[in-house]
């Protein structure tokens, strides 16, 4: 069903990661992403993977679900690995030499590094952010972080509101699409016609009702918001006020530690080489 491919797969829960302030999590993810690209040897990359696994454990989300999230990007990972294996050249003697195709040790190392990077990137950021932060909280966090831009007359609040509404309605519209598809199928609509024009025509019975209902919902929402005196950011208070707590301080401390360890581990190989 369409409904099953929700964007930003949030899993509600009450783990340590769930309870962090969204702003903390956004900053931590940025730090994490940068660090992933800083790591450049076996030790630091292994450490990254371990960190990702620890994060999964902290989030309380089952490993099965996390692994499933990797499936869609598996092709990308394999593709990158293959490219690295075949296209890396180095001055060493090749491990395999089949004329045109030469595989070097460096190529395999690069491929493994790349796989570890992508894996820890996806696991780390989805567990830190998308799996444990509800979309609404996330936009709240973004709005607060971007608040300084208001001084430059950037309509931060309006963007955040638009994003919140869009996120809120994605599941609703997907559900509606499912229903409309079923309803038209019940009237014998076929979606397996041949030719581009016919194919496009076959989708009209879905697209038109979907647009009509999206506009109707937008209209109703606008009226409902006006009835509650919504007039943008001005004088607006919040039901959930974001507040940093000691947990966030701990998280930041860990992230500094994390950067330090990666940098140190990066240094190890240089030290060993000397």
């Amino acid at each position, binding site marked *: 069903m369409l409904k*099953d491919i929700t964007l930003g797969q949030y899993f509600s829960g009450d783990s340590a990661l769930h309870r962090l302030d969204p702003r903390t999590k956004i900053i931590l993810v940025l730090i994490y992403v940068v660090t992933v690209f800083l790591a450049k040897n076996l030790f630091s990359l292994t450490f990254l993977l371990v960190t990702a696994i620890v994060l999964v454990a902290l989030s309380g989300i089952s490993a099965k679900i996390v692994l499933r999230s990797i499936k869609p990007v598996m092709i990308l990972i394999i593709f990158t690995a293959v490219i690295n294996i075949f296209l890396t050249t180095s001055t060493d003697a090749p491990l395999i030499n089949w004329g045109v195709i030469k595989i070097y040790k460096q190529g395999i190392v690069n491929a493994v590094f790349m796989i570890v990077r992508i894996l820890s990137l996806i696991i780390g950021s989805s567990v830190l952010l998308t799996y444990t932060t509800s979309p609404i909280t996330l936009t709240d966090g973004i709005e607060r972080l971007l608040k300084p831009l208001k001084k430059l007359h950037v309509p931060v609040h309006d963007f955040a509101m638009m994003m919140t509404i869009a996120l809120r309605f994605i599941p609703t519209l997907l559900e509606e699409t499912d229903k409309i598809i079923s309803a038209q199928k019940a*009237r014998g609509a076929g979606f397996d016609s041949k030719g581009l024009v016919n194919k496009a025509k076959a989708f009209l019975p879905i697209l*038109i009702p979907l647009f009509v209902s999206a506009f109707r919902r937008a209209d109703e929402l606008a009226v409902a918001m006006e009835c509650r005196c919504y007039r943008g950011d001005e004088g607006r208070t919040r039901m959930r006020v974001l507040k940093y707590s000691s947990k966030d301080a701990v998280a930041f401390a860990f992230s500094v530690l994390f950067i330090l360890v990666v940098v140190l581990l990066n240094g190890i190989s240089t030290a060993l080489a000397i």
Partner: protein
Amino acid sequence: MSKLTLENVSYVYSPDTPFEKEALSNVSIEFKENRITGIIGHTGSGKSTVAQLLNGLLKSTSGRVLLDGQDIFEKGSDVSKVRFRVGLVFQYPEYQLFEETVWRDIAFGPSNMKLDPNEIDRRVRSAASFAGVDEELFEKSPFELSGGQKRRVAIAGIMAMEPDIIVLDEPAAGLDPRGRDEIFNGIKKWRDSHNSTVILISHSMEDMALYADDIIVMKDGKVLTSGTVDQVFQRVDVIKQSGLDIPQITAVTEELTKRGLIDGNGIYTVDKAYEKILEALKER
């Protein structure tokens, strides 16, 4: 004339995910031919899921749906044929209208059946008259119509396929009493003239008392009780247990019976109540 049967059917939404939900568990129902069978239950009891299983829009997780004794998902059989034989009117069907004119929208189903134009026109006109759509509206855009009119156009769209069995999921939801009566009477007329089986989904016991022949009471994905209207109304406690309201007249006669004033269990029409009360008065 066709016979539809559910045989030990279970259905699970989003299996193997955190959102897994068993909507039906081991449900067996035999729908009697040429009768109006009401499926009634509280919101979330699985009524709409049953509806979509009946014409193959959903495939049961376990168990079978039989149309004239044949599994609708049997290898080699074409499910889309089943959809023409078992017409399903969705809940709030007005949201599926899309054509430029009312006539063309009603004709969408029959056109998909690849009928010839004359036959399509005949069916559109016939269905429109049963569903209560005025021919004057034929050239209008469906989006210009009132809510009640749209609903009737959508119902006509399924009737125009002239299915052997028609399933209507809460066809009167959100309509005023008059619109509701018009739609139900149209459905009844349609059944009488086509000799077809009607399956009517509702959560109003009041509607069921007026329009159904047989009733199936559902709760939490299971069949609580079933039988003719008379039989089911003998078990008022079961209806209440399923979280449904009983018709007002049933509540009144039940209370009168409890106080020993009349002898009238399971009354669901005003006429019957009137009769019983007169009887009791005469005896005094």
